[in-house]
């Protein structure tokens, strides 16, 4: 019994020692999301990208601020409706490093939460509406420009970050998005929300970040 007890005590002390060694501030990372840019250059009508600033606390908690820009200018082949908007968006949140006790590894898996919001203006132009009944005579034009809107949403994030070379890293993440609120006008509702994507109650997206660990 005695030797066993002594062994356990040594392990406990080592663990305590490791914890005490970890400083609160572990560094800051800057990065840019490039999947949205690549998607746009490959022919999508939608452009969405963001830059991030993330602090590392105790190698475990990773508070993050993201500022991005979303833009769409599309004309539907099926309905002949033109929708246009462009605006910045903002996200704030934090990630949790599941491998916080394995700093020797070249990367880690993380999970996190974001709160996103944006304020934007959009334009919609659609073909003239013709009454399908009553002789099909009455026509109503459809054009709404400068519609002011705000939107808020939550994102649950899961992903990984790996070192590439010196301070450079890359990371993939999958985001589940849940819309919290948006402004609905009498005649229109936004089809595309910068930073959120198509205006559905929930959505998924995949991001690819290139990052750099600042040397301070």
């Amino acid at each position, binding site marked *: 019994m005695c030797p066993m007890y002594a062994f356990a005590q040594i392990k406990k002390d080592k663990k305590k020692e490791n914890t005490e060694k970890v400083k609160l501030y572990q560094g800051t990372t800057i990065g840019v999301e490039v999947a949205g840019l690549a998607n746009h250059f490959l022919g999508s009508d939608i452009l969405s990208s963001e830059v991030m600033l993330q602090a590392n606390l105790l190698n475990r908690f990773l508070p993050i601020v993201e500022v991005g820009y979303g833009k769409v200018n599309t004309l*539907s082949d099926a309905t002949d409706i033109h929708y246009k908007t462009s605006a910045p968006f903002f996200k704030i949140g934090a990630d949790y490093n599941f491998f916080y006790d394995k700093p020797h590894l070249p990367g880690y898996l993380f999970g996190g939460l974001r709160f996103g919001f944006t304020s934007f203006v959009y334009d919609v132009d*659609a073909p003239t509406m013709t009454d399908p009944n*009553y*002789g099909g005579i009455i026509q*109503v034009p459809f054009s709404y420009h400068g519609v002011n809107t705000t939107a808020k949403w939550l994102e649950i994030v899961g992903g*990984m970050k790996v070192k590439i070379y010196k301070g450079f890293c890359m990371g*993939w993440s*999958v985001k589940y998005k849940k819309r919290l609120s948006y402004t609905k006008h009498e005649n229109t509702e936004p089809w595309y929300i910068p930073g959120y994507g198509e205006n559905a109650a929930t959505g998924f997206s995949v991001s690819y970040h290139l990052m750099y660990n600042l040397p301070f």
Partner: protein
Amino acid sequence: MKKLPVIFILISLVATFLHSCEGESCPPNAMAYAKFTMVNQHGTAVAPTVPTSVIGQTTIDVIVYDTLENGDIIEKIVEDSVINDTLINKESNMSTFKVPLSYSDQTSFIINYNGEQQDYITIKHRNIPYFMSVDCGTMMFHEATEVTHSYGIDSIVIVNPNIDNYEKENFRIYFTVADNQ
């Protein structure tokens, strides 16, 4: 760590699959119908005993083309032309019916009881063109502001003035019916 890319690829595939399953969120009905229910003085549903038709009617300015004796064609506007559209034709046991309003600001309905008798309903309404998605197209909704009727009907209550693509009772037509009928 070597397993991380595999985990990520799996997560991405699941996310892509879930995203593709969401589909377009267009409403099932692109058309907005005003729904009427017919009830007796006690609020119980009643139906005419004969085949019933509903004719929609609106008045608009119509452009017509006249050919003159010399062969010239001239454009003429005929103001307040009455446009009729048979919306329901001789339906039996009709205790509820759904009909579209016109894009004008007033629509009338003639309820024809197998040619034997007619009731008239006139609805004043505000038209609301609506857009929700580039994939779904535009829709015309309406807000009923006033309803009048002929003497054969006791009264009409606007249950829900918003006529959109979600089916709901909009108008309740009250008739006085003998209790033995």
